[in-house]
């Protein structure tokens, strides 16, 4: 292998990285440590997913990268612009769509997008034209002149995403773009995001849904308690996870607890008790299922039902952190 001179490597590296964060630390008033040293690298033109439960620090990371919040420690840059030292430069090249659908309810869809366009220094006429084009693209033309308060949740999210795209930013941040949406709205939003990525936009999105990350992201980082605890492609994470989960239903939570005690003497697999269901994370192709049933049979315990499932985000968290995604 031929070693390249270091400086060339550096150049190549800088040009190919769209978002870079190093050891970001943020502690909020009251001592809540939202970020405890997060480092990320997002390649240009790729979709990067930040996966984690509520309160993991995903939104804080996005707010720092979009210059809304200053980090207490560490540094971050978007397309080479430091988010603390050059916030104005960063703002000119990013778009942000948040989980709270930040659009003005009293304005119409068209007025919202026109306003954003004007604030991005487009002339009124151009801003209006751009707004109309985006409304068309997001299937909101019919609702263009209605106040946003009459919009459905899915329409608001689409408008919010459109608002992030007014300036045609090369880097887009999407903070839980589909949280709280019905499945239909979710998949239509996914299509839009996929189109954008096809156009070369770099996207960093946060999500609680493995399915969403699976479908949209080239790479993922799992974040918990303000730290990145795993990183890789969705396939890598799943493989690391060990693939499957065995759900054993019992007649009562007490019986399930008893089964856990019995099983934990013989199995090393992580287990999670959810009321009367005992969830056992098992490696794909391992003998753990047979072993588990044998152990239960020896103890004269009969589950009322059982299933082997594909891993969910909960399983990723259980395996990586030892607690479920909805626990803090």
């Amino acid at each position, binding site marked *: 292998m031929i070693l390249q001179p270091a400086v060339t490597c550096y150049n190549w590296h800088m040009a190919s990285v769209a978002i870079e964060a190093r050891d970001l630390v943020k502690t909020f*008033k009251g001592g809540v440590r939202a970020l405890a040293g997060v480092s990320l690298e997002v390649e240009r033109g790729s979709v990067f997913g930040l996966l984690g439960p509520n309160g993991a620090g995903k939104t804080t990371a996005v707010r720092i990268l979009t210059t809304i919040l200053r980090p207490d420690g560490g540094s971050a840059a978007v397309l080479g612009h430091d988010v603390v030292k*050059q916030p*104005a430069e960063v*703002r000119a090249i990013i778009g942000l769509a*948040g989980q709270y659908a930040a659009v003005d309810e*009293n304005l119409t869809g068209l007025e919202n997008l026109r*306003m954003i366009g004007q*604030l991005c220094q487009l002339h009124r006429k151009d801003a209006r034209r751009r707004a109309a084009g985006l409304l068309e693209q997001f299937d909101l033309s019919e609702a263009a002149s209605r106040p946003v308060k009459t919009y459905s949740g899915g329409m608001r999210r689409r408008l919010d995403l459109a608002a992030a795209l007014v300036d045609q930013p090369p880097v887009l941040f999407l903070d839980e773009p589909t949280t709280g949406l019905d499945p239909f709205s979710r998949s239509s939003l996914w299509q839009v995001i996929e189109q954008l990525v096809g156009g070369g936009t770099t996207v960093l999105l946060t999500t609680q849904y493995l399915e969403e990350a699976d479908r949209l992201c080239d790479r993922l980082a799992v974040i918990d308690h303000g730290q990145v605890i795993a990183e890789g492609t969705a396939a890598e994470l799943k493989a690391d996870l060990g693939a499957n989960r065995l759900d054993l239903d019992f007649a009562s939570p007490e019986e399930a607890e008893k089964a856990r005690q019995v099983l934990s003497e013989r199995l090393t697999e992580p287990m999670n008790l959810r009321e009367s269901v005992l969830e056992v994370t098992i490696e794909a192709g391992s003998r753990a299922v047979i072993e588990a049933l044998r152990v239960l049979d020896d103890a004269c315990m009969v589950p009322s039902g059982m299933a082997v499932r594909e891993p969910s985000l909960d399983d990723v968290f259980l395996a990586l952190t030892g607690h479920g995604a909805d626990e803090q």
Partner: protein
Amino acid sequence: MTTAAVVAPSARSARPSPLRTVRDTLVIAERNLIAYVRIPEALFFSSVQPIMFVLLFRYVFGGAIKTTNPGGYVNYLMPGVFVQTVAFGAVGTAIGLAEDLQKGLIERFRSLPMARSAVLAGRTVADLCRNVAVTALITGVGYAVGFRPSHALGFLAAVLLLLLFAYALSWGFAAVGLSAPNSETAQVMSFPLLFPLTFASSAFVPVQSMPGWLQAFAKYQPVSEVIDAVRGLMVGGVPDVSGHVIISVAWAAGFFLVLAPLAVNRYRNRT
């Protein structure tokens, strides 16, 4: 260095020029005015209270209050009502910004390449426009109950003065709105600031009728100064009007110079 290779595709300059600040301010002001026009109820209900004060003091309490100014108590009352109304209008600034914060709009604005002060300046300018409308309405109501300013020029000068003062004050309430966790709290936080200023003042009764310890505050506090100046300009009967006008303008300038940077600072650092 390698930065040349990764310069942003955007050709726009990063530092907002003064012209851009003005443009952004107008865009935000327009946005807020659209909301006022679209929800006329808000404007209507914010006018109900001053109208009730006019009727209450004109017809219920007024007979018991002795004033010496020309034109009787109604002429004494109306300048006070004008100033009280625009001062309470500043609560709208606090509520509006707290709402924007709550709904995530401020986050969006902070992620845009716009002038940082424009969100606040746009809000205060819109509230200034609202104050113009409310002042016109109160003038009509006052006229209907017998208020007669002594001459038009003095009246206009007084209106300008009270709008100026209200504008400076609304920056202070912008800071309040940006410090509140939600719009309800913004409102609750605003009233204790405004009640002593507007009631322990020369708005409804002569300061001389108050107990001595209160007179000291009521006579020299900024809202009384503005009321005295406005009253002198509108209906006369106030000694040393120009002195009150100068002190009022100084208060307005002082408020603006202290409160506007404070509010912008709150806007920048709000987490």
